């Protein structure tokens, strides 16, 4: 899988350095470069676009205010950002779970797919079952799958973001993919997942 190199590493390092010194243009450049990927990651974890955007913005407020704390020797900038976003997503989910009524929790229904995601999937001729099955995975497994596929990270980076070793990250991703495969097979979704051309 291709990982998403932001820009040339030298440019990124320069933006980070300038951003740490308070250069607003460099902060804006970093924001525009990474904001969409942080929103996508948060959307995969929270299943709500408004929440995902809020978490992504919080992530950037923290990250851009603390650029001096980023250590390029420890992790890639994107991994650092995703780690911050992941932690905020967990907090957001917990707060939402606390607000949910006990009956809603017991019902255990399939989570609804956000309209924006549904539209984006339909545009590509994809159905929403995979998204719903992804949301139904347990939290550690879903985090690993979302980081790997929506975050387009390597196992090493997934492990760094989750705070586990790459082998554990890989094993969680495998578990997740297997669970998704089973869920889709049980739903008889296989024929629906055949490729169809996106409408022009």
């Amino acid at each position, binding site marked *: 899988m291709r990982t998403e190199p932001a820009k040339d590493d030298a440019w990124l390092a320069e933006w980070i350095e300038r951003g740490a010194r308070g250069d607003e243009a460099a902060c804006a450049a970093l924001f525009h470069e990474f904001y969409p990927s942080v929103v996508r990651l948060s959307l995969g974890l929270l299943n709500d676009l408004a929440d995902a955007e809020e978490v992504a*913005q919080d992530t950037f*407020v923290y990250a*851009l205010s603390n650029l001096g704390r980023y250590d390029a020797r420890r992790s890639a900038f994107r991994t650092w950002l995703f780690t911050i976003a992941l932690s905020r997503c967990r907090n957001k989910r917990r707060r939402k779970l606390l607000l949910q009524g006990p009956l809603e929790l017991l019902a255990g229904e399939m989570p609804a797919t956000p309209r924006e995601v549904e539209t984006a999937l339909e545009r590509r001729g*994809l159905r929403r079952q995979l998204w719903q099955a992804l949301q139904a995975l347990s939290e550690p497994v879903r985090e690993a799958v979302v980081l790997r596929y*929506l975050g387009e990270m390597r196992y090493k980076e997934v492990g760094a973001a989750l705070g586990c070793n790459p082998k554990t990250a890989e094993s969680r991703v495998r578990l997740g993919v297997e669970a998704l495969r089973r869920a889709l097979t049980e739903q008889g979704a296989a024929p629906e997942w055949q490729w169809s051309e996106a409408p022009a």
Partner: protein
Amino acid sequence: MRRREVESQLEQVAAALKTMPLSSEAAWDRVRAQMKMPRQVNRWPLALSMSLVAATFIVANVVPMRYHLAPTLRAAYLPAPVLVERTPTPLGWTAPVVSGATAAPPLRFDVAPVPRPPGS
């Protein structure tokens, strides 16, 4: 359905999400505004230490604490020192005798009778 197909579908979902419109300019404006806001200073450490100091003063002022903390108060609660005299004799020391210098004077309650009002 095979595992590889699921992985491929996940990659396609990721690609589909990239086409989702996001208002990143408006988001940047919000982030920039939040970054420019003065940082919230944590006031709880100051409040906690002030409360602790106040509590310490309140507790230290109750009499049992003052007895231990204030030497003058403790001294006031102690019995007055009494000088005891003993004299060496060839047969040993005499029994202790309270010296007249520090012996407490006997309490006297012989109050003079109040004169009666005339005619009573």
